[in-house]
């Protein structure tokens, strides 16, 4: 072959092309000193297969060589490529966004385009139109009340979905006595360590936690109620107050055990209270929107700004939202740690 390569002219080119073609198609001449390895048994699993799958490597076609190479190196190269491309994508996105941020109007300037006539309208007329001292509460629970209704519905739907996903499998455990989370050795693989040292077993006998909880729970409950009920007067409202109320429930569950909480806040209580709150919200706000849109006189009084009983529907709506949020957040905690509300 070397003599052929040394020759010049079209014959030489043809010979080079011929040898290249033979190399690609794997039909070249056999070297004399070739050692043919034994054929591996065909049923070996992928990881135990020898790397040179073909007995005569130089005879494999380019396609075969390519697929063999892909089998050996493909995953590694793909993961490298994937990591590189993800970092590159993120860098490109961040630099584009940074270039945009550099062109934004200056931070905190009063002439920014975001502070336009919408804001002027909300601030100047929000007080006497909604009756709420807290303009944000008037905004989210009066002007944009259906948005907040959707939020509460999203939260409730998420809680029901988590209940469906996590509650159903664990309820089977109480039916036939066996947990679906135990492996062959009868050990629960959701708990690390031996079962008698599980997190909840230790927590139930915690004297310090109990005495602190006895002191703290009434204060937390009172704080949550204040934040919910003063939602139209001060920072806070249904969402933050509901979150505070749910921490009281979670603390009670940790200090006294889930059974104690279950006696006054069960799955049924959660479903009934949340759906009642959603229904009250939808009906009362539907009435208010209906009368407002049709210019019918609404029977809901606005009250004087700054009073606790003022701002029309905002106070009951805050209480509804607070109930939903408290139930949902406690439900998330109980479902993820105990598997049941």
């Amino acid at each position, binding site marked *: 072959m070397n003599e052929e390569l040394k020759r010049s002219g079209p014959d030489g080119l043809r010979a080079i092309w011929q040898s290249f073609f033979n190399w690609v198609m794997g039909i070249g001449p056999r070297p004399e000193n070739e050692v043919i390895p034994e054929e591996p048994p065909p049923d070996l699993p992928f990881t135990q297969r020898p790397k040179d799958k073909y007995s005569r490597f130089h005879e494999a076609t380019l396609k075969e060589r390519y697929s063999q190479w892909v089998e050996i190196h493909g995953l590694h190269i793909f993961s490298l490529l994937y990591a590189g491309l993800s970092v590159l994508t993120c*860098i490109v996105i961040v630099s584009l966004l940074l270039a945009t941020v550099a062109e934004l109007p*200056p*931070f905190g300037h009063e002439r920014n385009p975001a502070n336009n006539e919408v*804001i002027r309208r909300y*601030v100047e007329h929000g007080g006497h139109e909604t009756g709420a001292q807290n303009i944000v509460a008037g905004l989210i629970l009066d002007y*944009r009340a259906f948005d907040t209704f959707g*939020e509460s519905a999203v939260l409730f739907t998420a*809680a029901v*979905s988590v209940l469906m996903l996590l509650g159903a499998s664990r309820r089977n455990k109480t039916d036939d006595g066996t947990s679906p989370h135990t492996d062959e050795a009868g050990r629960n693989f959701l708990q690390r360590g031996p079962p008698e040292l599980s997190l909840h077993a230790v927590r139930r006998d915690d004297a310090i936690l109990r005495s602190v909880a006895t002191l703290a729970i009434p204060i937390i409950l009172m704080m949550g109620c204040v934040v919910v009920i003063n939602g139209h007067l*001060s920072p806070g409202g249904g969402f933050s107050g509901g979150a505070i109320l749910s921490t009281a429930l979670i603390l009670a569950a940790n200090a006294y055990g889930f059974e104690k909480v279950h006696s006054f806040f069960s799955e049924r209580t959660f479903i009934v209270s949340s759906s009642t709150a959603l229904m009250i919200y939808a009906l009362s706000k539907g009435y208010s929107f209906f009368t407002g849109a049709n210019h019918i006189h609404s029977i809901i009084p606005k009250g004087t700004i700054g009073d606790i009983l003022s701002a029309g529907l905002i106070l009951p709506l805050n209480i509804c939202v607070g109930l939903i949020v408290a139930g949902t957040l406690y439900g998330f905690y109980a479902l993820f740690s105990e598997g049941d509300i």
Partner: protein
Amino acid sequence: MLEKLLLNHYEAAAVILSGIGLTNLLLQRNLIKKIIGLNIMDTAVYLFLAAKGYVEGRAAPILIADGAGGWLRSSELYVNPVPAGLVLTGIVVSVSVTAFALALTLKIYESYGTLNIDEALLKMTQEQEEIEARIDEAEEEVLA
């Protein structure tokens, strides 16, 4: 450009934070860490919105009494109340999505015993192949 970025440092921090979150989301193979990345991106959005609503030297949008039984209603006194409402929406949706994603992750862990998405997908594919093979066998039996 750097001066302008320093002027808008809250927005710049929000953008970098969202980049960190996106990288986390793409590169982590652990599902819990992916969800943490998603939450970092959410936080970046809240920071951006809160920064957009701020106005230098103005008070929170809660009406201040003017001392004579009325309320100060000038829009020159209060910051933008709209981003507060938008951030509230964002937080609620983020909490719901996080809880649902964590519940799905827990179910994947119960079924496949792993949090690594590649391993879980591999096991899912194997399971699927096993099921298909069993269906084929049953069909052959029926035909025979």
